[in-house]
């Protein structure tokens, strides 16, 4: 098995985190923007239209960002007349780390929102406290938007690692951003100087926190890679245990039977077919296609394993009766069926069938399980070893132990229908089909 490469795991985690952080970021920015709209309550009516106009840019940009990351979101935007060009552009850039209309819009929106409170043409009439709070909200908005760039998964890409110059630039982002904030926050107008110096200094210095976030993010990424490696190793040992329990044990019993003084060759064939089906059943459990296996399970899972292990889809069509598919067998009955079904199935194959159908039923009291395989084959050559009547002899004898047997009859297609039946595992109190409530 391949060993894990930490840098790949780190990149995968960064991608997983990136998409979720982007979504969370949209909501955080929406909240901040909502807060800025609230501050407009303190604006004189004359200034209101301009302030609203400036904040509206952010609203539109953020709506596009939401549409970008919501499934079907862009389709909603496309319903608005004249947005074709925008939607086409956005669907091209969706999911790619590139400068697009959405990003530019948010940048412009953040700047215009900041300029509501400070800068060269600030809105007048804000109480000092409201202006400071509004400014803090606007800076936080840009801060959050740029955070996405600082911890962008692209920095960790193994497919397309960032160039050296870009990696250096990453260190410079907080410094450049701090410079921009400081510049915009200079007291350009009398209204600007209302904002206390302490607030302005704190906001200017805030990008330094990026370094902390970055460091924490990196630690989390490395920790997740280690956790992944540890769980992979646990998983490998578990799988090894499962392989041992289901597959190796089956082979141990096969080997043991083969080593017995006088093994029956048909029983050996049956055990080998069973082992093949167990391997395919195990595959089903491993890839999560089924849950049961040796611990009982659905008839459909067993059927799929049998077809996969023994069938040949070039030669024949295989069908399981719909009602049987969801039927559940207890652990014991499932394992008996794991022996019975492959034998009946392979006999149908040997008879040259081009269509093989299977059915399972559980009826009566005590419960009797019937597994039926119908084929349209011409029948088997009458040579002793492959005669179904003899090759199923051992199996028949085993089923007799459970008050069962095997019956053959000719069906309407000219082929054979074989039915194996046995009394369901008596069970001892577990509810469920195929089990009987114990006293």
């Amino acid at each position, binding site marked *: 098995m391949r060993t894990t490469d930490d840098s790949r795991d780190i990149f995968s985690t960064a991608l997983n985190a990136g998409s979720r952080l982007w979504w969370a970021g949209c909501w955080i920015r929406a909240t901040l923007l909502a807060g800025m709209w609230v501050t407009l309550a303190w604006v004189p009516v004359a200034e209101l239209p301009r302030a609203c106009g400036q904040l509206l840019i952010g609203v539109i940009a953020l709506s596009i960002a939401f549409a970008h990351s919501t499934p079907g979101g862009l389709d909603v935007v496309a319903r608005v007349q004249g947005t074709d060009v925008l939607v086409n552009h956005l669907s091209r850039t969706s999911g790619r780390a590139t400068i697009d209309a959405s990003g530019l819009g948010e940048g412009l929106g953040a700047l215009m929102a900041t300029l509501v409170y400070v800068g060269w043409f600030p809105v007048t009439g804000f109480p000092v406290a409201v202006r400071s709070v509004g400014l803090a909200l606007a800076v936080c908005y840009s801060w959050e938007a740029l955070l996405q760039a600082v911890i962008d998964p692209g920095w960790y890409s193994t497919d397309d690692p960032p160039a050296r110059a870009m990696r250096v630039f990453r260190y410079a982002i907080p410094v450049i951003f701090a410079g921009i904030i400081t510049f915009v926050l200079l007291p350009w107008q009398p209204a600007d100087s209302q904002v206390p110096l302490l607030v302005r200094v704190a906001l200017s210095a805030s990008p330094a926190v990026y370094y902390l976030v970055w460091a924490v993010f990196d630690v989390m990424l490395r920790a997740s890679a*280690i956790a992944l*490696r*540890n769980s992979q*190793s*646990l998983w490998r*040992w*578990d799988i090894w*245990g*499962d392989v*041992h*329990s*289901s597959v*190796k*044990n*089956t082979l*141990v*019993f096969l*080997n*043991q*039977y083969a*080593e*017995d003084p006088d093994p029956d060759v048909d029983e050996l064939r049956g055990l080998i077919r069973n082992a093949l089906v167990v391997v395919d059943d195990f595959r089903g459990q491993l890839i999560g296609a089924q849950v049961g*296996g*040796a*611990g*009982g399970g659905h008839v459909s899972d067993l059927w799929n394993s049998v077809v996969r292990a023994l069938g040949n889809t070039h030669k024949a069509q295989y069908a399981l009766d719909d009602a049987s598919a969801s039927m559940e067998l*207890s*652990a*014991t009955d499932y*394992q*008996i069926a794991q022996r019975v079904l492959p034998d009946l199935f392979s006999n149908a194959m040997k008879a040259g069938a081009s269509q093989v159908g299977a059915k399972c039923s559980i009826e009566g009291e005590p419960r009797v399980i019937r597994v039926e395989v119908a084929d349209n084959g011409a029948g088997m050559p009458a040579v002793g070893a492959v005669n179904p009547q003899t090759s199923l002899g051992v199996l028949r004898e*085993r089923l007799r*132990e459970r008050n069962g047997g095997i019956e053959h009859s000719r069906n309407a297609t000219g082929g054979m229908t074989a039915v194996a039946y046995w009394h369901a595992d008596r*069970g*001892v*109190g*577990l509810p469920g089909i195929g089990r009987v409530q*114990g*006293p």
Partner: protein
Amino acid sequence: MNIVVADDLFWPQETVRFALAADPATKHHVVTGVRDPEELRRLPDLGTFGLAFVDLDFRNTSGKSGLFALRLLEQFDVRAVVYAADDEDNRALSLMAAFRFFHPHGLVSKGASSAEIRQAVTVIESGARLDTPAMRRYARPRGLSYIDRLLPRVGDLAIWRALARFTDRRTIALAAQVSPRTLDTFLNDRFDIVAEISEAFHFQAPPATPTPVTPALTAGEARHARLAPLHAFALTHRRFFDDAELEKLLRERDDGRDPPTAGRGPAARR
């Protein structure tokens, strides 16, 4: 004699039944089976069985282990043989615990031939116990048993469990809620017994003792040199250390409470 086979797989039960049916001398035995220990507990007529074949690992069907089944069988006075893949290294501790806490009448390997199965049943039917080299490996060595040296306190389970899940010393200590110093002491104290068990049961190569190989190890390196083999050991035996029944047995041992059938079995239990 009524015989019950407790195994998550159905075919071991058939193997026992086939083996006994093949000889006129043993064909009078009636063999039935259950797929998990819970089912064994629900058997209305459990006390009527003369013998049980018990597997130790029921990963496919149940969260309960063979230790749970053995406790149950002793409570109902049913003789038990452990029926396990005894040559798999991840079974060794379960087998040791089975013989440490209970009194199974024998050990029958999953690879046993029909003749061996018949012989085991005949011996036990006569009232004797099996005495095979394979079984003697797991029966308690003189002095403290391996299990008692590996897990002197029930609290050690938390460290073994953390050792399987994590690879970093500080994380292991954090997960086990012990100080890193306590963990170091633990690693130091358990290193020899792990080496001894690994050697006695031929698991791969025994873990390398750090000092002779590189005498100039720093204290930190020495800690790591002990951590890696113990982590591997904990990983191999993870299912054993995770077993809730084991925890219960250790707690009973630590509390000085006697295991379920104390006083019934021959001689003292410790």
